């Protein structure tokens, strides 16, 4: 769920200062919110900072640089925060006029943080056949947790599905396949379908 902080930015400088000091849960929220809100087709760039900088401040070039930050390359929120902050810092240095732009009243950037509740569901899999059947049934929230949250927020080495397939089933090849694609470039429903297809193909042999 989303917790409000009451912190808001109207300029790029304020945004940068707050990005450096807000809790990691805020950075996580603004780089992942879109995934859960747009499950089928996404009209928005994959992070809120890029959207605000492009659409509200009109700084398209910086927006593009932030859109293309390859989140999958970062294993901690700390590293991701540093990358976002340094991208804005470099841009501000190169384009000093961008400091003069500000958001109109009502269009400020509001910092929000993600609060996660983790609880076991009723679905359990012991082999690939059961796994693929469960994948078809579980909520998008469960898919989201095991792919994104487990890796970046709980700082696990890979997503939960690839980890379980490698370590409990001993199928390193399938695990690598599941951990190798970039989940940030598809919607959650596409992601579910991709994994189902890969696993079903493996089951058939």
């Amino acid at each position, binding site marked *: 769920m989303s*917790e*409000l902080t009451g912190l808001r930015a109207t300029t790029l400088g304020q945004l940068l200062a707050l990005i450096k000091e807000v809790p990691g849960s805020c950075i996580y929220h603004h780089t992942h919110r879109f995934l859960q809100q747009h*499950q089928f087709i996404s*009209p928005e760039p994959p992070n809120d900072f890029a959207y605000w900088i492009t659409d509200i401040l009109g700084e398209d070039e910086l927006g593009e640089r932030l859109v293309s930050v390859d989140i999958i390359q970062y294993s901690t929120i700390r590293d991701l925060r540093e990358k976002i902050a340094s991208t804005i810092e470099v841009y501000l240095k190169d384009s000093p006029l961008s400091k003069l732009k500000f958001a109109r009243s009502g269009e400020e950037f509001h910092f929000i943080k993600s609060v996660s509740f983790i*609880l076991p569901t009723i679905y359990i899999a012991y082999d690939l056949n059961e796994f693929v059947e469960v994948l078809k049934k579980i909520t998008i929230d469960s898919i989201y947790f095991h792919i994104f949250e487990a890796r970046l927020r709980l700082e696990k080495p890979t997503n939960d599905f690839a980890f379980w397939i490698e370590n409990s089933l001993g199928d390193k090849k399938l695990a690598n396949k599941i951990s190798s694609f970039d989940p940030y470039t598809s919607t959650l429903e596409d992601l579910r379908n991709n994994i189902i297809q890969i696993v079903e193909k493996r089951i058939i042999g």
Partner: protein
Amino acid sequence: MAKIEEYASLVGQAVIDDLRLLGERLKGKVVQHINSTPVGGGVAEILNRMVPLLRELGVDTKWDVIRGGEQFFNVTKKFHNALHGRSEEIVKRDFEIFMETSQQNIESIDTYGDIVFIHDPQPIALIKKKTSNKWLWRCHIDVSDPNLRVWEFLMDFIVQYDSAVFSAPAFSRKLPIRQFLIPPSIDPLSDKNKELSQEIINSVLKKYDIKKDKPIVIQISRFDRLKDPVGVIEAYLQVKKYTDCQLILAGGTAEDDPEGFKVLEEVKEKAKKDPDIHILLLPQNDLEVNALQRAADVIVQKSLKEGFGLTVAEALWKAKPVVASNVGGIPLQIKHKYSGLLCHSVQGASFAIKQLLSSPAYAKKLGENGREHIKNNFLITRHLRDYMLLFLSLYNSEDIVHLC
């Protein structure tokens, strides 16, 4: 009323299973909602649906209503307008009236809940009764630019709560208590939103003597200045110069809104020269609202301020093209040019209505995208989940909570 299992056909069985798991974690807790009216307006509408569904999920949920006379509700209406940023003359006596009625409610209402969930400013002073139980304050109002005198008066109460809840990020401000973002929701199986046959839609149009011989533009809202019904007529009149169409302004009034009938008269006066403007004072009849929305070609919500604007979610759920003001919670529901058109003025509204009436394929696509967005984010099942997580957050202060 629909049972929780009936929602599985829309959102999937796993969503319902997850809700039940959360309900189990709240066993033994009594959640007591308190607001100011049992009928009329968005808050009562949501509670009427949420309370039985939470009970079905195993959460022991109660709903109590405060009492107040005409003077009290006149004052709270002034507060409401002032919090929305409207200029209101508020005098010392208003605060006294508010506190006198609040004191009577403090004496008469039993706040027995393990979690007491107060909705909006009217019952806010009940926090004086707080003991060791948990208290939540839910603000359904757009407080992005409030009258500071009223806001500061309320702040004395707000800071005593455990957490506050707002409907949009722009309503938050620095507070010494936790605050959460929980937008409201619509119930897809209620009379207001369920699928309807063409026969029912036609019979409602017939009842109100509306012919489907020209495109229908509609705004369904309480007759309230903040919903700008006069602005809607002005926008319609500009459209009408180029595209022959008809306008329906339909709505009711709520028990705690003494201003409604006055606004209705002003609207009737403004509309009296045009036979294509239909002003409908609807009784509490959700099926008729549903039918009118489904009969519309374009649905408008030209509010000046909006706590959330549930009528937008209702319209989008019916895959209708919507023109709505960029205020309150509306931009959470409409992404401009993707799931509807946002506007800032009468001129903007009229341009957007013209655009949708003359480009039906574009209008259809916006409506379809809008329905998908509502399905993902603004149905009552999401709201139930958020409320249960909110209750659990009162006992868990971490950002990552493990519930084993």
